[in-house]
Structures are given as structure tokens and as C-alpha cells.
């Protein structure tokens, strides 16, 4: 009896340990980035008992920084107040790993009901998103047709509703400009950047006119430099490249000159801050004069460097360029998981998020100025738009350019550029050899992507 009793006790202890470990693994960690606060409806607005719709729980996920999380949580709280039967569970995190998490969730059937996505993600998750065309209750009349056509559609399906616009911009540090004798009103061309950059580094050896991580150099220096000399996209929809060897050599030579002239901070030093240029000590110490980045990033640069006066200026262009290669991109948007049980409620949430003036005020501009005319007007009337972000978009909108397509933002193609740019930056190859390598790799990769 004693032995049997001991065994039962042992078995009970084993089960208890297993359950405890299982509970700990599944428990939401309060320190985790991905918190899931549950919004519950206050009792203020309740419908009469006989008209109460069935309770609905919507999971909504997005990426961003703290300011975006706060803005969207405020919006969710407002929505929950208006529609008490809807409980919204927010799931948010930084951008690093967001797509990977989303893909895994879609594959495992555990994806949220409503997801914030970017157009560049369509090739991976497009098949998991609901086609919004049949949903007449979704009002997109306040959104420019070009935006819907260029950024919200993929393979003939309306997959998301754009929530904000951004464009590349030139962000100047006015204190640096004063110290180094630069005129704030310079009309920047690519060659002017080199000319002034060389002078500044010669006179102020600890300072550089600009800096950039590998993604910025590829997407905001290299590609626009080349595309402004064409009327093409980077990769055309038929999987042909929009550039030639000569243009590649010119672009890569320019990148090389940025480093050899001292215009750009040495490559190795900037790479410690990939995706976090606002943490670059030289930028924080006002030893960098210009950042080329997307307009949505203006907020984080201002927050990181509150003692400096930063202003948005027009993006650099070649004199007589064929296009600005700086489109207003409405890549970020809100979409619905096609497997959700609550399709109508999800679409209703999107409609409210996009068009409700009160929502626009409460959430502000977490994804840049809204593309919906209704929301934009509400924010303008409330004086809630950052003047520099609006200026950046106005500069970009002044000259027409071709809209980006999904294939051009393929990460494997981007990696090909970045590999050669690195070799150029470290002086390990010539522009000619790098151009040949890019063309060769692109040919092979585009062939592979065509078959998928």
C-alpha cells in the first residue's frame, strides 16, 4: 500500500510539473513587446436589449514604435465605446520579424482577424487576405483611385485599404547647416551632395554630410539615382529589369564616390544602426547634416534629437530628370484575414478606421498623413499634422513618377544590390564588375521568381 501510495503521489507530482510548465509557456509575459491588452466596452452606449448584436472578438495586429501603438490603442478604445458588442484584442510589435510572424500565423491558421500589412508583403501573404471588392459597406470614395489601384490591389484582388502615405525626403539638421556654412535653401542634386559633402568633411573631419544604412543606400540613394534617368520601374511587371549596365555603373560609381569623398559616413560605422539611424551617435551629436529617409521616419528622428531643429526639404534630383523616382507610397494598409469568422465586422472596423473623422483625430498619423480625404481634412482642421511630413509629401507629389510594384521590392533582389553595394563601399570591387554581377544575378533570380 505504501509503495502504491508513493507511486500515485509521484504521478500526481509529475502531472503537476507538466501542467505548470505548460501554463508558464502559454502565459502572456508582461514584459513582452507583444502585449495583448483587451479592450472592453464601457457601459456608456448600450443598445436596447432586443437589438443587441452577437458579441464579437476581433484580433488586430500591427507593427511600429511606441507612438504608433499608443495611437492605435486610443483608436481601438474609441471604437469599442461606439460598438460595445465588439471586443478588440490588440497584438503589436516592432517591424523586425513582423512579416515572419504573420506568415507563420497564416500558415498555422492562427492569424489575427485584421492585420496591418504593407504592399511589399502581398507576394507572401496575398493568398491569405480577403478580397474586399464584394463588400459594398466599405467606402473607399475618399481615397484617390490611383492609390487604390497602385497599392491596394494585387493580382486583380482588392486586398487592403491604404492608411497613410509616405515618400522619400531630405531631412536637414539646421544647426549643422549653420555651423558648416550650408544654405538651408540649397536645391539638392546628387552631384551637389558630393560637392558639399567633400568640402564639409575636409573642413570638419569629424562630420559627414550624410549617412545611411544598407537599406537606405540601396532604396533611397542607389535606385532613385538610376531611375531618375529612366521612365521605368526598378523591375517591370513582366520581370524584366528597368535599367541597363551603363546606368548600373553610373549608380555604383556614385555610391563609391559618396564614401571616397567623405560625403557619407564610413560604411562599417553606420551599419551598427541598421534600421535605427536615429540612434547613430554622430547624428545625435549633430555631426551629420542630412538624412535621406521616408517621411514617416521624421517623427522618430525628431523624438531622438529633440534639441535640434530638423526640416524637410525636396528629395535630390538630377537636373532634367525623367521622373522623380520618389512616389508617394501608400504601402501600409489594413487588411482582413480571409479565414476570419467575422468578415462583416472586420470590414466595418476598416471602414470606420479609414473614414471616421473622430477616429482620424484620435489616432493621428501613425502611418503618415492619411490617404482618405475625410481623415486628412479632419486632421488639417485640428492642426494635428506635422508640417515637415506634409511638406515632404507635397514635394514628392509635385512631379509625376511611376508607382512601385511588388516585384521591385522582392527581398532577394534587394539582397543582390546590397551585396554589391557593400563590396563597392569597402573598395573590394569596381563598379563595372559589380554591375555585371548584378545583371547576372538578377537574370537568374527573375527567372526563378517567374516560375513561382
Amino acid at each position, binding site marked *: 500500500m505504501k509503495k502504491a501510495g508513493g*507511486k500515485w503521489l*509521484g*504521478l500526481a507530482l*509529475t502531472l503537476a*510539473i*507538466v501542467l505548470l510548465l505548460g501554463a508558464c509557456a502559454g502565459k502572456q509575459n508582461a514584459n513582452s513587446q507583444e502585449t495583448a491588452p483587451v479592450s472592453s466596452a464601457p457601459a456608456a452606449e448600450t443598445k436596447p436589449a432586443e437589438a443587441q448584436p452577437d458579441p464579437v472578438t476581433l484580433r488586430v495586429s500591427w507593427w511600429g514604435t511606441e507612438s504608433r501603438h499608443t495611437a492605435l490603442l486610443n483608436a481601438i478604445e474609441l471604437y469599442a465605446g461606439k460598438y460595445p458588442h465588439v471586443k478588440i484584442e490588440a497584438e503589436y510589435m516592432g517591424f523586425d520579424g513582423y512579416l*515572419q510572424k504573420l*506568415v*507563420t500565423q*497564416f*500558415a498555422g491558421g492562427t492569424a489575427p482577424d485584421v492585420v496591418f500589412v504593407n504592399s511589399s508583403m502581398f507576394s*507572401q*501573404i496575398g*493568398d*491569405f487576405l480577403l478580397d474586399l471588392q464584394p463588400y459594398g459597406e466599405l467606402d473607399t470614395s475618399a481615397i484617390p483611385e490611383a492609390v487604390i489601384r497602385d497599392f491596394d490591389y494585387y493580382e486583380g484582388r482588392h486586398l487592403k485599404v491604404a492608411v497613410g502615405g509616405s515618400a522619400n525626403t531630405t531631412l536637414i539638421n539646421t544647426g549643422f547647416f549653420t555651423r558648416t556654412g550650408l544654405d538651408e535653401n540649397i536645391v539638392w542634386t546628387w552631384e551637389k551632395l558630393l560637392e558639399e559633402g567633400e568640402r564639409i568633411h575636409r573642413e570638419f573631419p569629424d562630420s559627414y554630410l550624410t549617412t545611411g544604412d*544598407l537599406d537606405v543606400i540601396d532604396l533611397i540613394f542607389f535606385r532613385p539615382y538610376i531611375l531618375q534617368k529612366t521612365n521605368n520601374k526598378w523591375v517591370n511587371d513582366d520581370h524584366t529589369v528597368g535599367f541597363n549596365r551603363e546606368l548600373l555603373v553610373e549608380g555604383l560609381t556614385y555610391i563609391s564616390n559618396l564614401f571616397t569623398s567623405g560625403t557619407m559616413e*564610413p*560604411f*562599417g*560605422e*553606420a*551599419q*551598427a544602426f*541598421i534600421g535605427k539611424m536615429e540612434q547613430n*551617435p*554622430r547624428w545625435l551629436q549633430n555631426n551629420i547634416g542630412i538624412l535621406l529617409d521616408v517621411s514617416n521616419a521624421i517623427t522618430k528622428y525628431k523624438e531622438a534629437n529633440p534639441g535640434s531643429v530638423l526640416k524637410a526639404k525636396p528629395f535630390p534630383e538630377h537636373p532634367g530628370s525623367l521622373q522623380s523616382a520618389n512616389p508617394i507610397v501608400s504601402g501600409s494598409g489594413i487588411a482582413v484575414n480571409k479565414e476570419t469568422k467575422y468578415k462583416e465586422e472586420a470590414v466595418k472596423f476598416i471602414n470606420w478606421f479609414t473614414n471616421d473623422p473622430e477616429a482620424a483625430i484620435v489616432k493621428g498619423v501613425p502611418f503618415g498623413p492619411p490617404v482618405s480625404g475625410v481623415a486628412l481634412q479632419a486632421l488639417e482642421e485640428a492642426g494635428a499634422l506635422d508640417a515637415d511630413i506634409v511638406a515632404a509629401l507635397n514635394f514628392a507629389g509635385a512631379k509625376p513618377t511611376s508607382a512601385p510594384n511588388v516585384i521591385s521590392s522582392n*527581398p*532577394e533582389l534587394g539582397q543582390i544590390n546590397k*551585396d554589391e553595394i*557593400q*563590396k563597392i563601399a*569597402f573598395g*573590394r570591387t569596381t563598379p563595372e564588375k559589380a554591375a555585371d554581377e548584378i545583371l547576372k*544575378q538578377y537574370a*537568374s533570380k527573375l527567372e526563378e521568381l517567374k516560375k*513561382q
Partner: protein
Amino acid sequence: MASANRGPRGQAGDLPFFNISFEGERIMFGANRQGLWGVIFISPWIIGFLAFQLYPLVLSLFYSFTDYSIVRPTRLIGGDNFVKMFTADRDFYPSLRVTFLYTLMAVPARLFCAFCVALLLHQKLKGINVYRTLFYIPSIFGGSIAISILWRFVFMKEGVLNAFLALFRIPAVSWIGDPDTALFTISLLVVWQLGVSMVLYLAGLKQVPHELYEAAKVDGAGKWLILRKITLPYLTPIIFFTLVMQFINAMQEFTAAFVITNGGPMKATYLFGVKIYNDAFINFHMGYASALSWFLFAVMLLLTYLLFRGSGSWVHYEDGGKR
């Protein structure tokens, strides 16, 4: 093993879960209660092993013969992934080379440093345990994200190390931003975490018979000769064990390279683990990444086998000297 003896009343044979016995022509089965209880108690581990180790292992082997990408339907493609690996992936050989270089740098350095520290700490001094603890603390941190981020801030151009070197007017070096120094810098992280190996060596040093040291001193042997002829031979089994374990860990290294340098600059730290991650989770070529993983496994298996084969000539065991 079960053994059933026939006869009017056969002896019971014991299997883990049940007994077999014979009564005449009848075979009787009875539950082996003790064995059954044992299985019940280890069942959590068995379930975990089956669900989280064996099943993923078998599935990844299957995926290595497909074009599995999570987002698209999966097709069997035979050995195409393995062919691509050797013939069409421009990062395959460079990544393998970097991984071997990293292993050849990090493993011997860690073994050597751990051994030296163990020798230093193998003394009867007041407070020696405090020093042992201090040297062990880095191992507790492990290869965590936080430590990797800390490493980045120590070794970047404007980091702590260069600030220290500036005190001696040594020019700043871009330790993690220069392709020539980046791999060495991230291998230092592994060397820094020498605590576990140090503890093993300390334990081994305590096992060396004191009579041998005394006899050697009586014969006039110096410290260097004692180290070479007595201490080292006695420690070779532990050295071999740590060599094998650290070799396996180094070949699979991921966190430091991913967090500190993200495989750069110029893929100077593009370890095989980082490559597998990128192919799987950035490019969504899960099938190909599975094939890469099995290739790495095969390489590690082969090299570990070679290590074992070669150990006979230099590893000395107490039971009869050489194996």
C-alpha cells in the same frame, strides 16, 4: 530482454511493460507493473521528445526534398535542393568557409583560455571561490540577445573598447564594421563565456593523483615538464569532451552573428546558421533551408566521427592508458 522458457510452467520473461509465461501450450501475458510505472513517469519526456524533436526532425527531412515555402502549396522536387546547394547558391561555399573559420578561431581559443584560467584557479588561496564565480558568470548569460547587443556597443567604432584604447592614444578600430575584424570580434564572445569548460577542467585537475606530482618533484621535474607529462595527459579526456561539444556548438552558432552584425559586413560573419535563417524566414524557402540543415548535420556528423577516430592517438584514459 524477454526470455520465455517452454515447459509445463514456463519461466516468466520480463519486458519493460509486460511478462510472458507459458502454462502448457498457452502463452500468458501479464502486466509488468514496475516497468509500466516507470514508463508513465517518463512519458512527459517521451511525449515532448516525439512531438518537439523527433517529429520536426523527420518532417524537416521530408521538407528538404520539397519546395515548401509556407505560403504556397508544397511540391516534391527530389534532390533539387541539394543540387542547388552545391551548384547554384552563391552564398553556400562562402558561408561554409566563414563557419569553418569561425570554428577554427573560437574553439581552440576557448579551450586554451579555459585551460589557462583553470590552472590559475587551481590553487588553495583565500577567496579563490570568488574568482571562480566571477569567471563563471559570463557563461550564465549565455549567447543571449542582450549580451549580443552589449557586445555591439562595446565593439562598435564609438564603443567602449575604442574609448579605452583612446586613453593610450591607440587609433579607433571599427571592430564589427570592418570585414577583416568582424569575425574575430564575434568569436571573442564565445571565448569570453569559458566558464563551463573552466569548471570541467578544474574538476579534472582535482582528479590528478597528487602522488604523481610529488614523485615528479622528487625526481627534479620542473613545472613545465609536470604540465606536459602529467597534467595534460590526465586531462585529455576532458579536453576531448569539451572539444567535441564546442565544435558542435560553434558549427551551429547563430545569435551572435545575427544580432551583432547580421551576417555582415560584406558577409564576413555570414555563418551557416544565419544563412539557414535567412533562407527560411526572410526568403521563405523552407524546403531549401531544411536541406541546408541536413547538410550541416551530415558535415558535423562526419567531422565528429573523424575527431573520435583521431582521439585514439592523443586521448589517454585511466583504464589501460590509450583506448
